[in-house]
Each structure stands twice: as C-alpha cells, then as structure tokens.
C-alpha cells in the first residue's frame, strides 16, 4: 500500500451511492479521489467508456459499473464493454450491484440497519437483485426512521424509499461505525479484485 496521498484517481460511476463507494475505496488505498463523472445511469456511463479510457492514457482512472443481469459473469461483461483498458484504467464490475459490496460487511450493515446479522445474505454475490434485497431488509428494520427512509411507500411506484441513497451514503462514509472495505472484500471476490486493482494503480 502506498504511503503518500499525493496522487489523484478520477472516476466514473452510475449513481450517487456508487460515487460514495468509489471515493471510499480510492481513499482506502491511500489515494485521493479526483473528479467523479457520470452519475446518469448505466447506459450513459457505458456509452462514454471509451472517452474515459482515452483519459486514462494520461491519468489514473477507476470506472465502476454494476453487472446487473447483463451477463453471467463479470469477466465476460468486462471484455464486451472494454476489451482493451488503458494501463492506468481500473475498470471494475460490482456483482451484481454495488449494494452487494455493502452486504459483504454483514456485522456493520446489520448494526446500521438495525436488523439481525443472520438476515444479511452471507454470499452477497449470489443475490440476484441486491438493491431489492437491501430495500426488503430495511423494511424489516426495528427502527422506523430506517424503514421510512429506505423502503418505498405503498403507491409510490418506485423501487426505493425517499432517502434510500442518502442513508446508504451515510453508511459508506462513516469510517468509525460504517462500512469497512477490507472486511467486505473477504466475502466479495469482485470487491477484493477491485481493491487489488486500485492497489496496483496506486503503485504505478
């Protein structure tokens, strides 16, 4: 792990929660998060991937995208999106959504959501729709604030509650009580590979 925080890593993501995760990971390997691009959904991000890759010829970059149901496994999907990543590009895929990486720190997430640890999936990458699973978990929280913020109101017609994103961002950003990337990496191979890739970037 590098010791100096002098180098910047730029990034591109699908949404606001992914941005918080990306910044946390960059800081975790001792780098500084640079400007973050995208935040307009997956298809917009993928469309711009080649431009980001161009920029990564000269500076360090990390692009984070959800696998969703787009392919059976991350490597296939990665090859189809960006067969030739630039040397300074770390193009990573969360299996299947970034929420799975949060599940991977079971203890802390259970405490944050105020739910039993046993209710959190132990194999986060096997969850088909981590976002829905997260909403479902939150809707069973013992704390009403969590339920009201994260679970959608009946009739809202949305997948998530009115403050779902900001709640999870809080969890990701809280270094003392919240999400621990290192712990999470031990039960999420796609996160472990991401940390390894970022570590390599930091040593370039």
């Amino acid at each position: 792990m590098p010791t100096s925080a002098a180098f910047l890593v730029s990034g591109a993501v699908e949404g606001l929660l992914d941005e918080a995760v990306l910044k946390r990971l960059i800081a975790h390997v001792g780098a500084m998060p640079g400007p973050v691009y995208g935040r307009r959904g997956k298809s917009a991000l993928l469309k711009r991937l080649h431009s980001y890759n161009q920029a990564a010829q000269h500076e360090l970059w990390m692009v984070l995208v959800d696998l969703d149901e787009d392919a059976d496994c991350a490597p296939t999907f990665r090859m189809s999106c960006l067969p030739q990543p630039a040397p300074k590009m770390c193009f990573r895929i969360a299996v299947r959504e970034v929420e799975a990486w949060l599940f991977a720190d079971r203890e802390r997430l259970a405490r944050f959501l105020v739910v039993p640890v046993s209710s959190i999936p132990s194999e986060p990458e096997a969850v088909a729709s981590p976002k829905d699973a997260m909403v479902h978990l939150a809707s069973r929280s013992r704390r009403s604030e969590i339920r009201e913020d994260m679970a959608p109101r009946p009739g809202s017609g949305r997948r998530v509650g009115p403050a779902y994103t900001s709640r999870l961002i809080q969890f990701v950003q809280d270094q003392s009580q919240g999400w621990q990337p290192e712990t999470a990496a031990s039960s999420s191979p796609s996160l472990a590979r991401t940390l390894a890739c970022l570590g390599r970037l930091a040593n370039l």
Partner: protein
Amino acid sequence: MKKSTGKALRFTTIQLENWRNFTRVETQLQRRAFLLGPNASGKSNFLDVFRFLHDIVTVGGGFQEAVRKRGGVSSLRCLAARRYTDIVIRVTMGGGNGNTWEYDIEFTQDNLRRPVIRRERIVQGFVELLARPDDKDKEDPERLTQTYLEQVNVNKEFRQVADFFGSVRYLHVVPQLVREPDRSVGKRNDPFGGDFLEQIARTPEKTRHARLGRIRDALRVAVPQIKELELARDVRGTPHLRGKYEHWRPQGAWQSEDQFSDGTLRLMGLLWAILDGSGPLLLEEPELSLHPEVVRFIPQMFARIQRRTGRQIIVSTHSSDLLQDEGIGLDEVVLLQPGDEGTSLRLADGLPTVKSLVGGGISLAEAIMPQTRPDKVEQLALFGD
C-alpha cells in the same frame, strides 16, 4: 431524533374551479409534492391557492383582503370559465392523528364587484360542522362578505383548520432583495426575502443560534470555505448575516450578506424556511442558483426533514437534476398541462407512459421532462435573426 410523522396535518386533496388557469381540476397531494409544467402553466397560481387560504385566516387579512390583494374576483377567475363562474376551492386535510377535515369555499362578486361567499362548508370526519348560507345569512346577506373561518368568535369548533391554514408558509428568497432590503421597507414576512434578516433576528436567540449552526454545517457542503455564520446588528440596529470565510489569512475573513453569492443566499433561505415553522411549506424552484449536484440532494433532504417533523412540502420545479432522484414517488409528481380549456392536473402515476419508462429503469427526469416541454420551443432560437 424522535419520529413524528403522521402527527402533522396536511392537505390530502384539492379541487379547484375557475381559479386562474384552472377551469375544473382535482388532485391528490402527498406529504411531498413536486409541481411540474411548462412556463405559465400555472404552477405559481396553484401554490397561490394555499397562500389564499392562509390569507383568509390572517389577522388584518380575511377573505375580502385576500381577494383584493389578488386584484379582485375578476382577475382570479379563470379566463376559460364559461357558465359556472363561481370560484371554488375545496381541500381535504388529514394525516393528523386520524383527524380528517374538509373545507369548501365558493365565491363570486356582487353588482358592486364586491367578493361574496356563495357557499362555505366545513366537515370533520363525517360530521358537517358548518354549512353556509345558513338562516342568518339569508336574513342578513352582508354576512356573506366574510368567512366563518376568519372569525375567532364563531370558529372555535373548527379552529384547528384556521390554525392549519395560518401555518402555511411560502418562501422564495430573491438574493437581490436580501442584499438591498430598502426595496421592501416595512414589509413583514415578505415571501421574497425583503425582511429575511429581520425574520431571522426576530427568532429567539437560542433557537436562532441552533438553526444558524445547522445551516452553517449544511451550507458547508455547497460552500466549503464558510466556517462560521452569525447574525449581528450594525450601529443603526439593522441586522446583518456575517459569514467567516477561510482563505490564506490564518484568521479567515468576515463577510456580510451583501457579499454572499446568490447561491449561498438562496440555499440559506431554503434551509431557514425548512427549519422555520411546522405547517405546509410552499417553495418555488428551490434549484435556482444552485449547483446541479447540490440540487440532486434536495428531495432527500426534504424527505428526511419530513420524517422528523411530518411537515408537508409543496414545490414547483423545472429541474431535471432534482427529478433524477430515485426516491421520488410517482404519486408525488403533479404534472400541469395547459390546454384550450385551462390547465389540467395529472399525477405521474396516472400516466402509463411515464410509469412504464420508469419501471424499465429510465430516470423520472428523463421520463417526465418531455411532457413539460413547450411545443415549439425551437422557434426561440430564430428570435436571434
């Protein structure tokens, strides 16, 4: 913090006839509501209904003054109105410990162009507490120039409604007015912020200090250089907001509101309005002057404040950044669509196209903004020739 959702009364439905842009409309309202529509579709006129109800019960106001302030019945009446020309406002309220209310007012003008009430009705639950005109009104038609709601000596049974209307707040801070309060001298509770600093100064010191502290912390998200925020009076007693900005001098430097940026003042006004009061809050385009990335968090900020206070927030907006938010319910979005017979109101969850687009993973902004786009907007470019 303690939860109190469900305790605050809120507007649950509204029905209008012949009010400004609206010939005949009806919509539900959630605790949070976003009004969308092209320019001049009637978003502000829609918000003005709630301000009108507020004005009816205001001391020194009342029904006559509320109509007069708006240029009389003839300027309130919808241009598309034809036969049934009474102006009708019907609202239902609920969410306050299972208490439900209905208030209904219908009015027109007499031969002297004086506003007169045709009907006033208040229902609590299923019980009708008031139905006018009553026998006394028939005896003395002069009585129909005032609502019962505004009269303390008769409104005891339904004072909760009067208090609720009185608690409606509208704020649309115009930075220029905050910086140059001379333009609105003597105005109290000026919704455009002319006496914004006075309003802050009138707040009891302890509350003010606590609120300014919270606002400073929130402001720092958008304006990280700001370190302190306080209210101080100058030698003439005029209140000023002072902010301490961090820069190369080790002590930083104090600036007062006339040096604050538009965005800083607008965000401050927005945050103050959210903390001030507990009744319905009406906001016009909270996104103005703010960085789009700041705007994206506004809906979640509203949701979280509402979870604590239960306060209803109704906002008009043109911002697709704001509508990117994944947590905005389709039943929270009211679409205003102008037509030959006046503007119509539709909830986004009643629009099959929007519903399927959003269900398919497209953002609400992308799904709904095209519905608010003016028809021949491209013609504007030709104005340059």
